[in-house]
């Protein structure tokens, strides 16, 4: 019984937040289970940070309910907060402290003392590669190290739940990679929610993604499922050499199961064309049909596309300019 009760570590129901007349988050609902890495996707100003601030108990919701590990975040915040490690946006930390002092302080607020505290700090320092700056003051650190120091703070008590607001924002590619592999590694045993507007990140680490736009959830699924929403999903890309564009469109026009054909590009005698499917069928039928239709040509490449997340993202979220207009 207890097991089924505990499968949902975070449950959010009809969560809303209004700042004066401005509705930043509008009735969002979702739940996250242990072992899931949930990506919070959305353009700037979509309401990702506001949602996370409510889930972590920093700001109270205007409406709705947040349950963390069975505890209501509004009615019973202390035990709920104990379960969570949080990396706020921009990774704040006390500039006047040393890395060791800062992590020690955070460990103390997590109720760790003496040997336990020392072990916790050492573990976090090791996981975030902070050994070299251990005694350095936070305000002398580079941005990457400051970021990791705050990240270390969030995992210091080995929490069941990690909430990370743009954990890779402003880091260089190597640091991004490190943080991502850290998230992936920890995601096996924990619940992780992290926000980003970088799409490749979602594919690299998430087991599920939620896309938020203007305070509302507009999509919720695995990266695979989201990609299927793409126009491109199931399309067949063909690359052939020694033929003309006219020949290609002509030949591919009559392929069964094809909706339309476009020439993607032409370069050094090669020609790329994309054939869009009529229906949702995607067992490679279209690819076989295309293959049949172009027999005799020198084929350089032929494959079925998965769909692209950035395209889905663009289609279901409004760009900033359009948003200004709807205001």
């Amino acid at each position, binding site marked *: 019984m207890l097991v089924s009760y505990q499968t949902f570590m975070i449950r959010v129901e009809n969560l809303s937040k209004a700042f004066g007349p401005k509705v930043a988050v509008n009735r969002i609902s979702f739940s996250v289970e242990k072992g899931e890495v949930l990506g919070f996707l959305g353009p700037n100003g979509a309401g990702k940070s506001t949602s996370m601030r409510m889930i972590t108990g920093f*700001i109270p919701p*205007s409406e709705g309910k947040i349950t963390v590990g069975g505890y209501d975040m509004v009615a019973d915040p202390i035990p709920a907060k104990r379960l969570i490690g949080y990396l706020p946006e921009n990774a704040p930390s*006390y*500039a006047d402290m040393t890395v060791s002092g800062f992590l020690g302080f955070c460990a103390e607020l997590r109720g760790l003392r003496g040997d336990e505290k020392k072990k916790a700090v050492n573990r976090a320092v090791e996981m975030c590669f902070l050994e070299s700056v251990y005694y350095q003051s936070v305000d002398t650190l580079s941005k990457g190290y400051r970021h990791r120091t705050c990240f270390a703070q969030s995992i210091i008590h080995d929490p069941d739940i990690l909430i990370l607001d743009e954990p890779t924002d402003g880091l260089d590619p190597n640091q991004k990679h490190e943080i991502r592999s850290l998230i992936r590694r920890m995601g096996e045993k924990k619940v992780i929610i992290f926000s980003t507007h970088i799409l490749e990140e979602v594919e690299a680490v998430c087991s599920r993604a939620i896309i938020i736009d203007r305070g509302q959830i507009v999509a919720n699924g695995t990266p695979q499922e989201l990609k299927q929403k793409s126009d491109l999903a199931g399309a067949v890309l063909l690359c052939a050499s020694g033929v003309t564009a006219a020949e290609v469109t002509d030949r591919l026009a009559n392929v069964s199961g094809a909706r339309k054909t476009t020439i993607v590009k032409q370069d050094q005698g090669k020609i790329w064309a994309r054939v869009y499917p009529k229906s949702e069928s995607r067992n490679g039928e279209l690819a076989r049909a295309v293959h049949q239709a172009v027999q005799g040509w020198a084929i350089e490449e032929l494959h079925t596309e998965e769909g692209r997340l950035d395209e889905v993202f663009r289609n279901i979220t409004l760009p900033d300019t359009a948003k200004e207009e709807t205001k």
Partner: protein
Amino acid sequence: MNSFGNITAITKRELGGYFSSPVAYIFIVIFLLLTGTFTFLFGGFFERGQANLEAFFLWHPWLYLFLVPAVGMRLWAEERRSGTIELLLTMPITAWQAILGKFLASWAFIGLALVLTFPVFITVNYLGTPDNGVIWATYLGSFLMAGSYLAISSLTSALTRNQVVSLILSVVICLLLVLCGFQPLTDFLAARFSPAVVDTVASFSFLTHFMSFTKGVVDSRDVIFYLSIMVFSLFTTSVIIRSHRAG
């Protein structure tokens, strides 16, 4: 027990924060220099020819007016400016523990500055035989008064993310609370209003309640006055902090 641990951790960090920058040392030096100057130069400590510290304590309400808000201005303004308030308040602690922990740290800091005025105490005991009971009572009154100034600074610090704005606001509020018991002003009021009005206004003054301490009287009404200023201001601090987050 748990909440005690949280408060201690916050107090410790905050005190560390004071001493990690030269500001703390500068503050203490300025405080000691000013108390010394005022006591010996303007207070006429030697000329009085009396073995007491009246000349020393006389200036405390006025010195605190600028020095204490300078100590308290960073309490919450800095947390808000740097965003660390988001870390602090998502820890498994209550806002009260954070408010109290921070307040106690700044109060302890002022306490330390007061302790460091011990040479005055030694001097007066070396030169004569003062009533040390009166001196201890006045120290206590001064410490309580500093706590009240600080609690008000904590309140104004929570209002803004700008430390300077916080400083100015608390100086103004504290000035009002000092002035409403200041002799020239009470005389002015007495000429126009009934004594009841004057007494009511004066009863809100830091000065009025400090006076009995300087005479060696620890009246529970004065202690309660300072304590209630602190409780009220810290409570208001918590309301302000909550309202920020409510958006």
